[in-house]
Each structure stands twice: as structure tokens, then as C-alpha cells.
């Protein structure tokens, strides 16, 4: 570590005046997002001292954890120079399924009348079911993208519509007539959105799904960085033709990336069912947009082949910090859109600048 800094310092001393200036400007621009966020956080904290209180920080973490799984899934699609527009609807469908499968058996209105009683095994089984459903839709996405060389934008636009149709039908089951699906079992809530850590004196409450999201981040980091599949994904994203020539199975990689993404949306939907306790057909609408925004803010580039899990986590947090800060400052919600849009634009421009500078 020491040697690294020493070498850096020597390199810096060797630069002439103009290069030194560029060194600082490049450094500032390449890290502009972090610097801006730091300024933003400090400003908010000065204006409202509660912003950095223990309860507020735990709230930001909780909100971020709820949107992390989705972003982790969609990140892989973006690495492949693609996208996934079906994410929000898959999320909505799996949330509705999880809520319907895990309704309190004593409730007056049930979507499915003949289901096992809520038990630990059934709660886990439902998680697997909804992840499989998500994965199945992802598989369809991946198959059409890889088999017919269709742009993911088109394929996932189609599956988004198809999934929405299925959602609408799902909400009609057993005379539900499109009403919200609710009354989820308390045991299910306890293990997903119940508090893992609670410090009553500080008004801090961290639900279990934060722990699960953290575990997911670790798993996804491992998948992206330490497995052949991860390496193949980046290779295909950088240059699919080159990857094929060097023996990467492009078809399988593409299908797997989309399938994995679908499974993660399923996980996100499962958490949502416990978190909200009431799912409607509109649940998940536009969620993929937030997830895509988080990824590009975090440096997962649409150029393909670049991005890392840490960046996605940062991107998710940036969006949630903006949400919480603007609320705590009581700023008009309309401005939130403008600020969010501005940040996405700035982050992506700065991101592209790195590639343009290289060329």
C-alpha cells in the first residue's frame, strides 16, 4: 500500500505543469458523482440535522435494500449492452404470486383456497416458486435475444406486455375482481420484513430483507468476478464476436444472464409482498426504470462489458439518498424528477467521457 502511494507520488512529480493540471481536472471529473453526492449529503445534513441520525441512515439502508435485487439483476443485462424493460412487470407478477400464496389462511377472502398452512417450509417453497417464475420469463427473454439476435429492448418490451396481461388475469382469480391482494401471513412478514435489529431508544429498525440484500450483493459479486460465467458475461458484453471466436458460448451466456435477472426480480417481488402487505396490478410499474438508472449512475455502461457490483450498490444508494433528502427538506416532489434526470444525464456523460478520452 505504502509503495503504491510512493509510486503515485513519484509519477505525479514527474509530470509537467500542464499534465499536473489535467491530472487534477481528470481526477475531479472522474469522481464528480462522488464529490457531488458528498456535497449534497453535507448540505442536507446542515439544513436538517436529522438526515444523518441513526434512524435516518437505517431508513436509507432499508429503502436501498428493497430496490437492490432488481438493480443487481438488470445490471447483467446492461453489461451485455442490452436492457430489460420487463423487469417491473415480472416484479409485479411475482409480488402478487408471493402475496397470494402466503395469505393468512384465516383471512375472509383468499385467492387460492387449497394451499398448505403457513410454515417455514412453505415460506421457502414460495420463494423458490416465484424465483422460478421470474427465471422462466427471463429465460424467454434470453432465448429470443440470443437465438434470433433480437435487441433486448424489443424482446423485453414484448414480454413486459405479455407479463402485464398475465398479471391482470392473476388478479381476477377466484372472484377477486382485480382488487388488491393482501392479508399476507404474519410469519412471512416476520422473516422477511420483520426487524432483524431493533434499537428502540434510537428509533432504529433494520428488517431482515436488508440482511438478505447484503447476502445477495456478496453472491452477485462472486458470480460477476470469480466465476467463468461472470467472465464470459463481460467478454460477450465487450465484443460478442470476439468472445465467440475465443470459445465463449454466447448463446448460453446471454440466456443465463437474463434468467438470473428474472430470478432476482422474483426475489425482489417476494420481498415487496412482505414489505407492503398489499399488492395491486400496478405494483412494479416503472420499477425497471429506477433499476436501470441506478446501474448507469453506478457506472454500468450501455457501451457494454463494463460495470461492477459496487457501482450498482452506489447507484441504488444515490437514488435513495436523493429521495430521502428531498423529502426531509420538504422540497416539491416535481423537482425530484428534474434532479434525478439531471444526475442520470451527468453521470452517464461523465462515464462516456472516460471512454472518449481513451480513444
Amino acid at each position, binding site marked *: 500500500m505504502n509503495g503504491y502511494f510512493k509510486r503515485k507520488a513519484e509519477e505525479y512529480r514527474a509530470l509537467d505543469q500542464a499534465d499536473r493540471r489535467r491530472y487534477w481536472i481528470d481526477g475531479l471529473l472522474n469522481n464528480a458523482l462522488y464529490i457531488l453526492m458528498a456535497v449534497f449529503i453535507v448540505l442536507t445534513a446542515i439544513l436538517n440535522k436529522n438526515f444523518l441520525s441513526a434512524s435516518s441512515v437505517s431508513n436509507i439502508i432499508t429503502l436501498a435494500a428493497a430496490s437492490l435485487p432488481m438493480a443487481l439483476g438488470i445490471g447483467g443485462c446492461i453489461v451485455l449492452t442490452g436492457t430489460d424493460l420487463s423487469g417491473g412487470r415480472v416484479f409485479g407478477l411475482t409480488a402478487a404470486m408471493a402475496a397470494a400464496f402466503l395469505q393468512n389462511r384465516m383471512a*375472509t*377472502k383468499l385467492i387460492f383456497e387449497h394451499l398448505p398452512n403457513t410454515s417455514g417450509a412453505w415460506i421457502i417453497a414460495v420463494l423458490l416458486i416465484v424465483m422460478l417464475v421470474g427465471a422462466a420469463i427471463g429465460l424467454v427473454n434470453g432465448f429470443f435475444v440470443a437465438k434470433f439476435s433480437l435487441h433486448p429492448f424489443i424482446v423485453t418490451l414484448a414480454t413486459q406486455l405479455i407479463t402485464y396481461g398475465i398479471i391482470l388475469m392473476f388478479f381476477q382469480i377466484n372472484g377477486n375482481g382485480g*382488487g*388488491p391482494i393482501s392479508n399476507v401471513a404474519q410469519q412471512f412478514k416476520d422473516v422477511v420484513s420483520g426487524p432483524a435489529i431493533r434499537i428502540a431508544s*434510537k428509533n432504529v429498525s433494520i428488517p431482515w430483507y436488508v440482511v438478505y440484500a447484503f447476502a445477495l450483493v456478496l453472491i452477485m459479486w462472486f458470480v460477476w468476478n470469480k466465476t467463468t460465467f461472470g467472465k464470459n458475461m463481460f467478454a460477450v458484453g465487450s465484443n460478442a464476436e470476439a468472445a465467440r471466436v475465443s470459445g465463449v458460448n454466447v448463446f448460453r451466456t446471454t440466456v443465463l444472464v437474463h434468467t438470473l435477472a428474472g430470478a432476482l426480480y422474483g426475489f425482489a417481488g417476494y420481498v415487496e409482498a412482505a414489505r407492503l402487505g398489499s399488492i395491486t396490478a400496478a405494483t412494479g410499474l416503472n420499477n425497471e426504470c429506477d433499476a436501470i438508472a441506478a446501474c448507469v449512475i453506478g457506472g454500468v455502461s450501455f457501451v457494454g462489458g463494463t460495470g461492477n457490483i459496487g457501482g450498482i450498490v452506489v447507484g441504488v444508494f444515490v437514488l435513495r439518498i436523493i429521495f430521502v433528502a428531498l*423529502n426531509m427538506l420538504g422540497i416539491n416532489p416535481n423537482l*425530484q424528477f428534474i434532479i434525478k434526470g439531471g444526475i442520470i444525464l451527468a453521470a452517464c456523460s461523465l462515464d462516456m467521457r472516460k471512454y472518449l478520452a481513451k480513444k
Partner: protein
Amino acid sequence: MKKVLALILALAMVLCLSSVAFAEEEVDVSDLKVGVFWYAFSDAFLSTVRASLNEQLDEAGIAYDDFDANNTQATQLEQVQTAVTNGYNVLVVNLVTSGSADAAEQILQAAGDVPVIFFNRAVEGDGEEHTVLDAHDNIAFIGTDAPEAGHMQGKMIGEFLVENYDDVDLNGDGEISYAMFMGDAANVEAIYRTQYGVEDANAILAENDKPELVYFNESNTDKYQLDPNGAWSSAAANEFMSTNLAEYSEANGNMIELVIANNDDMAIGAISALQNAGYNMGDGESTKIPVFGVDATQVAQDAIAADQMTGTVKQDNVGMATAITGVLKGVAAEETLADAAAAVADSDDMFSIAEGFTNKLFVAYAPFTGEAE
């Protein structure tokens, strides 16, 4: 012996029923081809109206088709244009852009001579009253009196607070701090609910020498938190509420003491956030923050029964469907829409013709706190 009695009773009942059916004037509905245009299939309350309406239309033997505009006015207009060319002879329209006279006029233009029954979402905004409904003779509106739900919610809140003031005032500062969740900035129902939910409660508090409600966050001058997607969603209310609770708590002495939501979905979202912080568990031990919504969805009724929610305003999905079906039967009998609406208004206390109108039929709201049932 019992069986014989039961049989006789059953026969008598069947006879009664059939005689009632015969007594009713049989209307030939076979010529009707009804297009029902919904603003969004995903809307929870309107989905329950759709289920009731489909059931009643099936029962009446009226041919119909449902269309989903998926929250886009342009889509709805195109659907109406297509339907007219496809031979539909009555259009039942749930306008996407609520309260826009221009959007309604476009639909009417596309409809031509075909009668149009607007329902649920207003066709005339503030200050535009009579501009649409009086300008055409082949249209009618069936809905709720937009401000009524807000008035009813405000009254319910005011009365509840007067009775339970000291219990609700957790920090004992003599004032009640409240949070307000708004569903959609462009919807007149949402605007009125946001306004009257508080104003009417304040009026009742003032009558009883209590101070007015105080919005919990003084730096937010809007005095509401708005679903950014305009979707009245539980997710939006949930995220706002958990963010609020991170800053406002009993420990800090500034806990939010009352939650008002534009609809039940948002109320349920707020309750989820409260439960995460240990409130409104319905176990008789945790502190219960009073939460009020509108719609009386099944979910909200269950939450009220479980002592997690305090009150809601019942918007009657079956009543709405009954009114639409009634007017459609009138159309089949070649009555004018105004006459058909008047006949429906006479049939039940819950229906009334709006003052100053002939073709605007109101379906009444009713307060719901779970006590009556």
C-alpha cells in the same frame, strides 16, 4: 314433515321471485352492443366495479366488451374511434384524464350520434361545470360527487379526534400533527380529498374548541406527500412514511399522530411502515396511530377489523355497476339518457341527480369504521 314444509316454502319463494321478475317490464336488450372503456385495468377500486358490472350485464343479457386504456388518453380515444366503426351503439367511458372537458369533447366527437355514458372519473373540471354535460343531449355522467368523499373523511376524522383527542395527542402538546398522502396531483377527487380531509376535520375541531391539525413537517409547504407516478400506490405511501418515521418519533417527541390517505391502498402502505416501526400491530399493546383512507376495499375492511386502521369511506362498486346497468336498460327501452338516469335515481336512496343537472347521476359514499357491520 320438515322436508315437506321446506319444499313448500321453497316453492313459494320461487313463485314469489318469478312473479317479481314477471312484474318487471321486460326490456329487449338484444340490440345493445356496449363498449366499456376503462382508464386502467390495474386500478384496484375500478376493478371491483368492473367485476360487478360484468356480472350484472351478463345477468341482464346485455352484450358488452371491456377495453383497457392503460392510463393513456390517446389510447382511449383510438379505442372509441375503433369501437364506433365496429358498430358499438352505447359507449360507457371511464375517462383517463379525469376532469378534462377537452378530453371528454374529443371522445364525444369520435362517438358522433352514439350515446356516451361517462362514469367514475369527472368530465368537467373546476369552473367548467355544465360545459360538457349541458352541451350534448346523448350523454350522461354517473359518478360520485367529487368533494363528497373528502368531506366525509374530514368529518369522520374530526369526530374521531374530538372523542379521542388526548389519546391521539401522544406528546401532549395540545396539537395533533398529521401526515397526508395524495394519490395523483391531476385528479379532482384527489385534490378535494386532500383539501377537505383536513379542512372539515379542522372545522369540527374548531367547534369543539380544539386547535387545528398541524402538518408534521413545517418545511413542506404543500402539506402533502404525492405519489410521483400518480398511481395512488401503497409503495409510494410506504416509502414516504418510513422516511418520515426515521425523523419523527415518540423518542424525539414529534411523532406523527394521525395519517390521512387519499385511498385505502396508500393507507395500507403507511400502516406497513408504521408496523415496521412497531406501531399499529393490532395486538392491543402497541400504540395505534389513527389511519384514514377512502374506498373501503376488502383489505382496508380487514385492517379495520384487525384494529390496525381507523376509518375509511365506502365507495360502492356494486351501486356504481347497478346505476350503469340501469341506465343501459333505459337506453334499450329508447328512453333519453336523462330519463333513464332519473329512473335510476328514483329506484334507490343511494342514487341522486346532481343539483342543476338532468343527466348527472351521483352514487353516494358512506363512512365506514367497521362498527355498523
